């Protein structure tokens, strides 16, 4: 019985090896376009805490990019869009990606917000030799320890979010920090990255409190932040936790004497809270709709379809899909390595990024913005929320290549 079982297992292993080889051989003479079409998958959180940040908006943005590309470049091939809800679960996300790659002929996956999901999908993408352009996840691991020749990290990461305020705010003389940190990997790494930037610029960290994810009440934690007498309270959390922290900070009068810095705050959060609660907050954004005519023009079009202004994820997803399609057009193939080579060689110039560059480790470098939330009286129209305090140039915004822990980077 036991021997039979072992035999079966070994047999299965040999079978899978054989089919894997057959697959690789079939793949070798790359057809110009697999399945005679390009298929793009938006894998995102459609119903959970991050669904306003990505979600349906990302699907809309990707569809806009496809429509615009068809109108401009008039390709002879078909482009198809699919999307799915990964429910913020790494296993659901990677299974969906596998299914898409194996049975539906998906060539490229985008959005993939939530770092845990992103890391899992990146592995599947490498295994299946397709492309992941991640516009939603935050973890710097995607381009460091877990970097992959098939993955691009497009919009932001924890280094970029932490570095901007850590440096700029500290240099303004607000040099003592207290952190309110979500007690899981993302919060810890955001806190660490910011603390490093604060210390490097002559500031000090006076304390931190770790709160559980989705804590319903933040008043206790904020009272601790208040009694620390730190000049800055850094919120190393995201989504609903950030929103509730800010709301309580306002109620307990922290905003009078201390500056609240959101380390992952987006326009979606500001819209949810209103300006009277958030005025004076500072944080880093990868995109703002009201920067110039180009961003306004695109964002208003997006607004027409989605009824909300775009987050940096939405704008980034449009830009990523466009960049990918242009590279396919230019190379005449959807072979991952060829397209990736082309994307890395071509600077990205659109409303989202100026002279954006995809580096060897997969990091897309572009300018980031240090923003301050306007007072209600300064806001001239709905969604007019930010004063741009500084443009952080691409070369400073992201982790320098010299510090890279990515094995692909030759030093």
């Amino acid at each position, binding site marked *: 019985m036991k021997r039979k079982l072992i035999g079966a297992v070994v047999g299965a292993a040999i079978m899978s090896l054989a089919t894997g080889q057959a697959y690789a051989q079939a793949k070798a003479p790359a057809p110009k376009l697999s399945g005679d079409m390009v298929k793009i998958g938006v894998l995102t959180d459609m119903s959970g*805490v991050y669904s306003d940040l990505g979600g349906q908006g990302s699907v809309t943005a990707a569809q806009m990019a496809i429509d615009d590309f068809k109108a401009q470049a008039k390709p002879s091939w078909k482009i198809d869009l699919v999307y799915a809800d990964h429910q913020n679960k790494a296993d659901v996300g990677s299974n969906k990606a596998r299914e898409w790659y194996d049975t539906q002929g998906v060539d490229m996956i985008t959005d993939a917000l939530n770092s845990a999901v992103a890391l899992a999908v990146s592995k599947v993408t490498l295994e299946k030799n397709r492309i992941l352009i991640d516009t939603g996840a935050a973890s710097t691991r995607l381009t460091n320890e877990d970097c992959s020749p098939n993955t691009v990290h497009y919009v932001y990461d924890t280094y970029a979010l932490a570095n901007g305020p850590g440096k700029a705010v500290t240099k303004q003389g607000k040099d003592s920090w207290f952190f309110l940190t979500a007690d899981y990997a993302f919060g810890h790494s955001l806190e660490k990255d910011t603390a490093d930037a604060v210390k490097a610029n002559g500031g000090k960290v006076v304390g931190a409190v770790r709160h559980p994810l989705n804590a*319903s009440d933040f008043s*206790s934690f904020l009272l*601790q932040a208040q009694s620390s007498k730190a000049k800055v309270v850094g919120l190393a959390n995201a989504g609903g936790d950030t929103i509730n922290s800010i709301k309580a900070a306002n*109620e307990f*009068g922290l905003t009078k004497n201390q500056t609240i810095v959101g380390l992952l705050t987006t326009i979606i959060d500001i819209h949810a*809270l209103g300006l009277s609660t958030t005025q004076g907050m500072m944080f880093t954004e990868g995109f703002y709709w009201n920067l110039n005519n180009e961003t306004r023009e695109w964002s208003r079009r997006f607004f027409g379809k989605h009824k*909300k202004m775009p987050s940096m994820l939405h704008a980034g997803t449009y830009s990523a899909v466009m960049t990918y399609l242009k590279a396919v057009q230019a190379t005449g193939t959807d072979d991952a390595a060829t397209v990736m080579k082309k994307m890395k060689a071509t600077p990205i110039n659109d409303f989202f990024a100026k002279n954006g560059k995809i580096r060897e480790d997969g990091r897309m470098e572009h300018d980031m913005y240090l923003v301050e939330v306007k007072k209600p009286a300064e806001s001239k129209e709905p969604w007019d929320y930010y004063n741009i305090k500084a443009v952080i140039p691409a070369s400073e915004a992201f982790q320098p290549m010299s510090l890279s822990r990515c094995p692909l980077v030759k030093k």
Partner: protein
Amino acid sequence: MSEIFGIPIQAFMGQLMLGLVNGSFYATLSLGLAVIFGMLNIINFAHGALYMAGAMLAWMGLNYFGIGYWWSLLLAPLGVGLIGIVIERSMLQWLYKLDHLYGLLLTFGLALILEGLFRDLYGVSGLPYSIPEEFAGAYNLGFMFLPKYRAWVILASLLVCFATWFVIEKTPLGAYLRAATENPKLTQAFGINVPLMVMLTYGFGVALAGFAGVLAAPAMQVSPLMGSNLIIVVFAVVVIGGMGSILGSIVTGLGLGMIEGLTKVFYPEASSTVVFIIMAIVLLVRPAGLFGREK
């Protein structure tokens, strides 16, 4: 400065006070659950969603009809109560004779539907609801800076909890109610309309959740997920207090709020777990809960 366990007494008192605010929400919510379980034998998993609906109705009232906070405090619970009555008449009433599990599954499904509905309409980031002007500012209590609104939350919840306890335990109406749960057939034989009482009880129980929702709206972000974050803790409170015990749920709600508040100072990482640790211990030592009676 004097200290308790290494922290200044001021901070200690402050955290106790904040714990009391959270405890007020726990007490009001678990009271509704206890009333429903005690009278109907239904484990109402839709409670969190109805709490959210209360907050949402307050927001909708303000933004679509210009109804202010005070009217919302009355109207939103009524609205939620009506929703509850519709649920009871159309669905729940067929389940009383069946196992608890059926009621639990039905109400859990309803909760998911309600949350999905509001999520589809308004997204997950939530909606702003500002603190009414009367409560802007804060009291300086010497040991802490207590926002006036939070003080009002404690006061309002205590009043409502006390009134509920009084009606059920000390008035003739409450006596009928208790009789109707103890022995529905006999009570009906005395000429009391039992199905009507049961319907109103469910309506009232969920109206309490709606009331807590309106109270929470200015203090927390109004969002479709606000109920699901809270409901599990509230169930733990009911279990610790003793399923169906009115007084138990009030006292345990307030007490656990304070214990949780202190945990946030001593070991913040455990603040979301401490309630469940206590629940496990209580179940081991007193399976019927602190105030429950063994049947």
